[in-house]
């Protein structure tokens, strides 16, 4: 029997994997991929809470996830555009070399 806890644990594992990718990788696109993984883990959480909650007929979790997916799509397009613009400026996709503000 799969309960809410299993989904919460899975979602926590996926979120941590995404965070690990964001924090440890040097490539800007991989950082973006990590952010996408984190957003999807949060969506899984929302759907699981809706499924195991008391009021399924209101579709709150479903609609929240729908809006979240739309925001994530907008975020992905703008994020990739920013990565391309930053790459054009610094001539490298390495986020460790983008330290102009620090110097």
């Amino acid at each position, binding site marked *: *029997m*799969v309960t809410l*806890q*299993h*989904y*919460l644990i*899975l979602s*926590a*594992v*996926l*979120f*941590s*994997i*995404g*965070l*690990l*990718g964001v*924090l*440890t*990788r*040097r490539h800007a*696109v*991989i950082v*973006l*991929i*990590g952010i*996408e*993984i984190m957003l*999807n883990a949060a*969506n*899984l959480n929302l*759907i*699981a809470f809706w*499924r*195991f909650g008391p009021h*399924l007929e209101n*579709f709150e979790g*479903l*609609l929240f*996830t*729908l*809006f979240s*997916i*739309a925001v*994530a*799509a*907008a*975020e*992905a*397009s*703008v994020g*990739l*555009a920013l*990565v*391309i*613009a930053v*790459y054009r400026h610094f001539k490298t*996709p390495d*986020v*460790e070399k983008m330290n102009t503000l620090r110097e």
Partner: protein
Amino acid sequence: MNAAFLILSLLAVAGALLAIRLHNLVHATLSLMFFFVALAGLFVLLMAEFIAAVQILVYVGAVGILILFAIMLTPHVTGENHGRLCSRGWIWGLAGAGAVFLILIAPVLLMAGLDTPPATAALSPSVREIGLVLMTPYGIALLVMALLLTAALVGAVVAASPPARDKDEPKP
């Protein structure tokens, strides 16, 4: 435990791990799309078939292909990365991710002792019902979302286009 849940969650974790650990960017993006498909399967298990279809359409069809195109159209971004994989302070990144994981997992494990509400009876929402709910109470949010997507489209085009050359500037 349900076998389908076990298989799909293992596939999702494997896809996510491969997506952040692979050297080749194209392979990483492909495993990210694999992760999206596994997550769509989990949504089907949770009786959210419409969200699963949206997940396939938006993530696998649009976001994955967008990332692939951005990688392939940008020179020197694609291909094997022979340098170091991780950043300099990767051990701190690992520690931070582990700490966040522990914080996230602690309430779940503490809640395990309590009796959890069983899943209510099966209810498969039809697309018509979702559309009606989306139109009546959430109409304003839907309009704002359309505005946001338009702004994101324009902003992405503006941000990604090369800076315009000044006309008075003498040509090199």
